Every structure is written in C-alpha cells, then in structure tokens.
C-alpha cells in the first residue's frame, strides 16, 4: 500500500485512534486514506455530511489539526499472489521482515509503507496449456501456475470480476508479480492486462460458484478432537478458555499437524513471544503429510497485543481474504485465529470512539453480525472458473472469555455461529490434563457427516467406540460425586472398574502431550487401535469381575500401565507393535482367569 493523492482535505479533530476530516473530494465508506505528513494508514468508517471519520492503523501522536489527508481510491485490500506463504505480516499485510529492513530497528516505527508481495522477485510461470487465443476468460479461470514453495503450487487465477477475450498469454518464463502474463480484451473493446497478483477488498467475501455440504474430516492428529469432537473440512470451531487453559497450544497443534493444504495463523492481540515461538519452531518442523518443512504451507499474521488496535480489527479480515485466495485455487485452508476476543475488544474500542450506543458489556450492537459475517466465510465451495475445483476453509478461533465465564457476549455470540465447540476447562488445566478440552461441555455438529465418512473409509467401528467410551466417562462422572463423599472403597467392584477404565481413557487417550516427540501427533489408525484396546480391556475385566475376581487384582495388572503409556511408547511408524500389546493384554487376562478359575 503506497502512494495516494493529496486532497484539499484537512483534519478537524483527533481522538483515540480516529481522526475526523473535512473537505475530501470524495467520500466513500471504507476508502483507505493516508493521514498527516507521515502518511499514517487509515480507513474511512463513518460519514456525516462533509465530515468523515477515519480509523487509523497507527498511533496518532504528533498529528495536528489541518494536517493533510491523502486519498487512495482503494478499499482496504489484500495483495493476493505467489509469495504469501512462509511470510509473516502485520494486521494490514505489511511484511514484518520488510519493516525490520526498512527501519533497521527492533521496533515497529510509524508511517512505514511497503507492499505485501516482493515486487522484485521473479517467479517461474507455467501457462495453462488449455488456453488459446480467442478463448473467453472468466473470473476464476486458471491462467497458469507458479511453484510457490515445495508444498504449494500457486495457481494463477483470473480475478473474480474478469470477463474478456484472450489476446495473449506469455510462454513459460520468469515474471515479477506485476508484469503482465495475460492480455484480454473486455466487452467494450478495452485491453486489460492480468498479472501474477491481484488485489481484493478484505471486507468483501470473495465470490464462489456455490457452497456444498462438508463431507470429510480435517484430520488433526489430536485424539480428543479427531475421535470425540471432530471438525469437517470447511467447518468452524471455537476454542474458548480462561488464561492458562492452553488455547494457544491447541491452536499451535492444529496448525502444525492438521492435514490442511495451507495454514494461516492469525496472532490477533496476543503475546509477542508466542509469535516468535512459532517463527522459531515451524521452520524446523516437518509436515507429517508432505514431509516438507511446515513453513512451506504456513503464513502468519502477527498483530500482537501492543500493536495498534485498529490494525487488530483488520487482521481477521486480512487473514480470511488470504484464505479465500487459496481456497479459490482448490485447496483446503485452515485459518486459526488467536484470539477473536481481542478482535471483538478492538471493535468495542473503536465503537466507543465513535460514541455508538453500547449494548452488553460495552460491545456494539453489531458484534453478533460481524462475527456471523466472519464465520460464514468458512465452508466447502465449488470455485468460480474452470477447471472445476472444490476448495474449503476451516476456521478454528480461540475465544478468551473474561474470568473463564462462557456466558459473556463474545463466547455466547460465537456459539451461535460455530458448529464445533471445544470448551477448555481450568479444572482440567490445573491438573495438567492437556488438552484441557472438557468432554461434557464440548460438542461437534459434524458427527453424522464424519460417521458416514468413517463407514466409507474402513473405520466402521468409530461411532461405536466413541459411544462406548462416552458411556464410561459419563458413568465415571456420576460415580465421582459419590467417591467425593464416601471414598472409592465403598463402591462395588464393577463400579470401581468403571473408575479404572475412565482413568485409563483420561490418562492414556484424552491427555496428549504437545511437547512429546511421539505423542504430539497421533495418526488415525493408532487412535482407533488405542480405543479398541482400552475397550477390550474394559470388557474383559468386566467379565472377570462378574465371575468374582477382586478389583485389586485388575488394578495391579501390567496392562493398566501399558494402556496408559502406549500413546508415547508405540512409535507412530510401527503400529504393528500395538498388535503385540493386544496379545499381551489377552494373555495377562487369561492368566489371571486361569489362576483363579474365573472365566474370561
């Protein structure tokens, strides 16, 4: 975002992060303006007669009344083209590495204008062979492709509004993002040139042909998510939790291990060191699905908590627009936002400066509408243009409810629009049970879809295992109330067995260490087998107890420890070892049975 034309306009008031301006030559909602001699970037958010209110994305110190204002004729837009992946941007898509170079300082200074995409870098463009002169080019048509990273081939697609006759397409060769690769003649006989990149206003959802129902799961390698509360590709999920419940770690895990094609991680008003951690760690990690470095499919937006709030408000839209760009190429994109509460707070702050009437807890009345707008940009779609492509966007958004209270406006409104809810629980977190996703408050709206998918994918036992484990956990929670009053000794053996089985499930299955080299990612096959073994143990032990075996003997079986530790002890690339465990459990149970004369 550079340039802008000076107007006769002048600043008439300055307050918080907004300025008011009079005398513009045109007044268009959402237009990007440069404010003051330093050309601070802002956006018109309110117009009243000849008075325009501009929300400025940088601190306003030093601005004066009567300082100049520059119009750009553009809305807040994202640059879309090769070079986005592996990059880290601020909330208005300025590359942070570039800012560092320009300022030669560790701090983000004001008034820095830079393009999102490198204008000098040349990309090897391969034209789409199907295209011939005289063809009609529609929006969304694939013009060719560029190898963006080892993982991602970036399809060069005609901007959505394109319509015209193909006059010329360049041969395979190297181009910068602004050099023309295709020339078309549109309806009124005007020539226009298409380049590797185009721009799109971030507050407008990119068009697609149609939305289609979601049909397969996003595999995350996180057991409680994949098996208990799965999310479909194209689905939405919220992760609410008080501080210290591990929201950010869950978000990191999803970005690291999900089988999405592209991951966009938005650090929206969170800690600076967390973004540094991602920057430090991701290039070293290997994507389990492609074996390439994780950064080859990841881009980051970092608008940390002490960066300007107005840019924090914009960061969410910037992220989702970039996600739509990759969706339109026919890819599955995972967008994780941490945290939408900080975004909502930015909204509240700006609304306060506009002196709008607040509703709940000072939030503006349109909070719900804005949230809906955001989450509705997720989904599985058929894209515009040819060839036929399906793409999807997943949104997983952290919510930071004040005091961990889920009834507050942001959590409550978010719940209206997301289908999956991973409620984090501070009681679990205090016990270092991570991920601290509570299995009673959480839910997934995609169970039916995933069940169908599981049947087709040879995981026909998934639904049954899930239900059986749930039943054990449910019974356990009821029993725990009694145990708290009278201790577990007083319970009959079969009820003590339920507590033991639930304990194995909680320790050995639901808890998953994000920092353990093996446990951090758990393949689906391993997850299924683990469930199978745990349930097998429970059923066998149940039989033994029915036949009079005391619970203490079962408690001290080696199998108990084996079941709790197999998540870490069995390497993900040698799942055959799980069969050995199964044999071991069988034989241990049989031995117990024969020794004491119980039937197994």
């Amino acid at each position, binding site marked *: 975002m550079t340039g802008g034309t000076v107007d006769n306009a002048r600043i008439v008031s300055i307050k918080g992060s907004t300025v008011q301006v009079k005398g513009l030559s045109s007044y268009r909602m959402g237009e990007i303006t440069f404010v003051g001699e330093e050309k601070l970037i802002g956006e018109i958010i309110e117009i009243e007669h000849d008075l325009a209110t501009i929300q400025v994305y940088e601190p306003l110190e*030093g601005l004066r009344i009567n300082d100049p204002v520059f119009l750009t004729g553009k809305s807040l837009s994202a640059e879309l083209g090769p070079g986005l992946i592996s990059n880290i941007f601020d909330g208005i898509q300025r590359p942070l590495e570039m800012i560092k170079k320009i300022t030669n300082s560790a701090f983000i200074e004001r008034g820095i204008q830079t393009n999102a995409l490198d204008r000098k870098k040349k990309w090897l463009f391969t034209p789409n062979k199907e295209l011939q002169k005289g063809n009609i080019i529609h929006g969304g048509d694939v013009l060719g492709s560029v190898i963006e990273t080892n993982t991602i081939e970036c399809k060069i697609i005609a901007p959505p509004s394109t319509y015209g006759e193909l006059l010329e397409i360049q041969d395979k060769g190297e181009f910068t993002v602004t050099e023309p690769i295709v020339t078309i003649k549109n309806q009124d006989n005007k020539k226009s040139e298409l380049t590797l990149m185009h721009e799109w206003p971030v507050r407008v959802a990119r068009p697609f042909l149609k939305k289609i129902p979601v049909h397969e799961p996003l595999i995350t390698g996180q057991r409680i998510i994949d098996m208990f509360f799965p999310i479909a590709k194209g689905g939405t999920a919220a992760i609410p939790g008080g501080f210290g419940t591990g929201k950010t770690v869950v978000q990191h895990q999803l970005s690291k291990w999900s089988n999405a094609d592209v991951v966009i991680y938005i650090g929206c008003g969170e800690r600076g*060191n967390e973004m540094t951690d991602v920057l430090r760690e991701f290039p070293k990690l290997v994507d389990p699905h492609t074996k390439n470095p994780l950064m080859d499919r990841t881009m980051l937006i970092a608008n940390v908590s002490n960066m300007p709030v107005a840019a924090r408000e914009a960061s969410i839209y910037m992220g989702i627009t970039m996600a739509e760009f990759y969706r339109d190429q026919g890819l599955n994109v995972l967008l994780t936002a941490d945290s939408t509460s900080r975004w909502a707070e930015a909204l509240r702050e700006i609304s306060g400066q506009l002196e709008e009437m607040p509703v709940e807890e000072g939030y503006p009345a349109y909070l719900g509408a804005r949230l809906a707008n955001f989450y509705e940009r997720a989904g599985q779609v058929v894209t515009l243009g040819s060839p036929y492509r399906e793409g999807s966007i997943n949104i997983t958004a952290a919510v930071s409810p004040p005091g961990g209270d889920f009834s507050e406006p942001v959590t409550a409104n978010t719940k209206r629009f997301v289908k999956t809810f991973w409620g984090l629980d501070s009681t679990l977190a205090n016990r270092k049970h991570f991920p601290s996703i509570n299995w009673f408050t959480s839910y997934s709206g995609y169970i039916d879809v995933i069940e169908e998918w599981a049947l087709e994918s040879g995981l026909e036992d998934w639904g049954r295992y899930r239900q059986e484990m749930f039943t054990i956990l449910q019974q356990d929670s009821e029993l725990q109330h009694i145990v708290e009053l009278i201790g577990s000794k007083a319970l009959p053996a079969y009820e003590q067995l339920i507590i033991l089985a639930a304990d194995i499930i909680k320790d050995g299955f639901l808890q998953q260490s994000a920092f353990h080299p093996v446990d951090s990612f758990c393949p689906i096959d391993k997850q299924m087998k683990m469930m199978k073994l745990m349930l097998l143990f429970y059923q066998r032990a149940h039989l033994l107890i029915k036949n009079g075996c005391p619970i203490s003997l079962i408690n001290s079986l080696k199998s108990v*420890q084996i079941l709790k530790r197999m998540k870490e002890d069995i390497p993900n690339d040698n799942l055959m070892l799980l069969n050995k465990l199964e044999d071991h459990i069988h034989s241990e149970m049989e031995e117990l049975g024969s020794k004491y004369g119980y039937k197994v």
Partner: protein
Amino acid sequence: MARITVKGVSEIRGPLIVIEGVSGIQMGEYLEVNLENQPSRKGRVLAIEEERVIVLLYQGTYEIEKNEIETEFFGRTMQLFVSEDMIGRIFDSLGQPLDGLPSIYSEDYRDVNGLPINPTSRIYPRSYIETGISTIDIMNTLVRGQKLPIFTGAGLPNNKLIGQIVRQARIAEQDGSEKFAIVFGAMGLTMDDYIYFQRLFKETGTLNKVIMFSNLASDSAAERLLTPRVALTTAEYLAFDKGYQVLVILSDITNYCQALREISVALETVPSRKGFPGYMYSDLASIYERAGIVENSKGGSKGSITMLANLTMPNDDITHPIADLTGYITEGQIILDRSMHNKGIYPPIDVLGSLSRLMKDGIGEGFTRKDHPSLSDQLYASYAEGLDKRRLAEVIGRKELNRRDQILLSFADKFEETFVNQGDEHRTIEESLALGWSLLSQLPETELTKISGELIKTYMTKSEEEIA
C-alpha cells in the same frame, strides 16, 4: 518545534482542562501549566477538536485559576532523558530527581510511550534464572526476558518474596561479563511498602544498581499512568541500547489500573467490566509487552528485560478484570495462597495455580538438568492427587482412606512442609531437585508414571545417597 503559550482555559473538570482558540497543537503533545509560587504542572494532549484541546494534567487541577493561567505547549511528545547515570538514583514519574541530586542531562532521550517490538526481532527467551526458591525454580521456572506477575492478596507476603528474589536471583552472569540493573516502578505504594523496598535494596547491596521511579499512594493518580512507562523506557534504553540485563519490578498493577479507571471515567469513556475501560487490555499490553529480548544487528542479543509485577487481587478474586486481563498477557503467574499463609507456610505459593509459560523451553538437558521436566511433572501430579485425597479425608476422615490414598496424602503434606515451606533459605537448583527426588522416594515406584525408569535409576538412588 516552536513552543506555543496560551492564556486561560475554558473548562476545568477532574484532572482535565480544556483550552479553546489554539491551533497547531499535536496529538499527545507535552505541555506545562505555569502557576504562581508553585512548580509548573505537566500534562498531555488527549484529544483535539478544531481549536479545542483536551488536556490531562498529571498533577491535577486543584487551585488552577481559569482566566489567568498560562499553558505552554512544547511542540513535541513527552520525552525522558535517559542515561546510565540514572542508576542508583530516585525519580518521580516524570523523570525529575527526588533525591536532591541534579537532573539528568543526556544526549539520549526517548518517547515514554515506546514502540511495539517487531515479533521478527524478538529472541525467544530460553535462559533460566535461578531464584533460589524451590517452588519457582523447579515448578515455575523464571526465564530471562519473561514477564511474570505475582498475584497476591492484601496482607500476603508478596513483598517479602520479591525481596528474596532480588537477594538471591542471578539475572546476569556474576563474573562481570554482563551488566545488571534493577528498575523499580512504585505505583501508588504506601510509604511503608516504599520504605521496605528502599531498605531491601540497601540490605542486598543492590542500591547502586537500582533506578527508582516513585509514585506513592498520596501522589497523583494521573501521574501514575506514566510510572510504568518511564520505568520501561529507561529499562529499554539500558537493555537494548546499553546491553544490560534488566530486572523491572512494578508494584502495584492494581493501583495503576484504578488510576486508569479514574482517568477514563473523567474522559467519559464507555466502561466495560466493573467500570474499567474497554481498552484496559491494550493498555496493560503496552506495558507488559515491553519485556523481552531483541536481537541486535548481528543477530545476537542486546540485553534483556525481565519483569516481575505485584498485583493485589481485590478480595483475592482471580477473575477480577485486573488479574484476568493480566493473566491473558503475561507469560504465567505466581499465585500466593491465603490458606497456605495461614498455615504458616512461606513462601505461600499456590503450586497448582501458578504457571510459567516459558518454562518448557528453558529447562531440561542443556539448561537446568535432564531430569527436571519429568521430576517437575511428577511432583505436580502427585501433589495434585494428594490434595484431592486431603479433600476426601476432610469428609470421611483420614483413617477411612485406603493405603494408596494415605500415602499420597502424606506426600502432599510433606511436600508443603519441606519443599514449599523453605523460609529464607537459599536453595540452588541442584538442592531443590534433590529435595524433589527425596520426596518422591516416599512413593511406591508404580506411582511415578511421569518419569522414565532410566531417570529413576540415575537420580533416585543418587539422592538417597546424598541424604545418607
């Protein structure tokens, strides 16, 4: 930039004055109001509407005469002269000396609001700081460049704990290869607490390494908004320009937030929870996020800012907006527990509630010791379970517990009596680790689910020998 002087004001309310008919004023501009027979008062431009300027006066508006006063606008934002000469001195929140010595004049000056650190320039903090306190070193390890608040309640010994950390912690290498300084921001402190800290610095021999910025309970609330900012501006200069390892101590964040609320109400901002302004999260972030380590042009580190902040939870309520928002920004928290304190345990650290988010990358092999992560996990897990059993014992009586439960309960008791309740003792990391192992040796080995057999073999026997 030329200075502009204006006579008279049009409105005076609370700490705010409104001046009309003046042009060329900058947002955030620094100004002084000149009074007869009184020191001038300092202020800052908060908002401008055409020729109407709204100003916050840090020393309040009492005794200001509407038509006669002169306001001088300085044509720049508030700046703080910074210099290494500040070390060992005491200042007010505007950087003026309170110790009777001359003002600081330096070629270097900084805007007190600072700028956000570019995340790509940060260096992820990984060097642990040995504080000599077991519950911190083993269970909630402090890392250089971390921001860690102490959530405390009225009457709990948080200042004593900070004192102990100042006395014992090795923030910088002590072989003289690294420079060390403490920057202390006193925000709304009572005279008693203030004297305590002064004495502490004197006793620990750190007085010549401390820069104090002092805003006492009786001082102006508006000025309190500046205290952490001048403190951190100074800290940034020392750490990032001069390569110091800086420990910033802020006390008390609660007083700061109450001042923020007071001013925001005067400005008629829409309140959110408990009357605190909606921007309190961003405002607190602009303080806490100034801690850290940044890389220099060669990719190495320049120095560091580690931050400890006292935060008194009103009514011991951790869900209060001040504690809550802080917890979302800082890299963990140390919580002090009243029931532990009442039992006579010092430091009364709530081990289960406390957290150090940076711990995982600063401990273990190559940092503290190989067994540290597992040992810490095991102590945590067994203690948590022991506490459950204590709750159960409260209902059904200790005798009714089964044998395993009794063992766990007595482990929890011992853990509190020895590991937590260390008093003024200074324990090295090795000593704390050994103590942890000796506590674990009371549990049957089947209970040690978080530790690998190999580690148990290496360290368990060793620590038993040590005890013998």
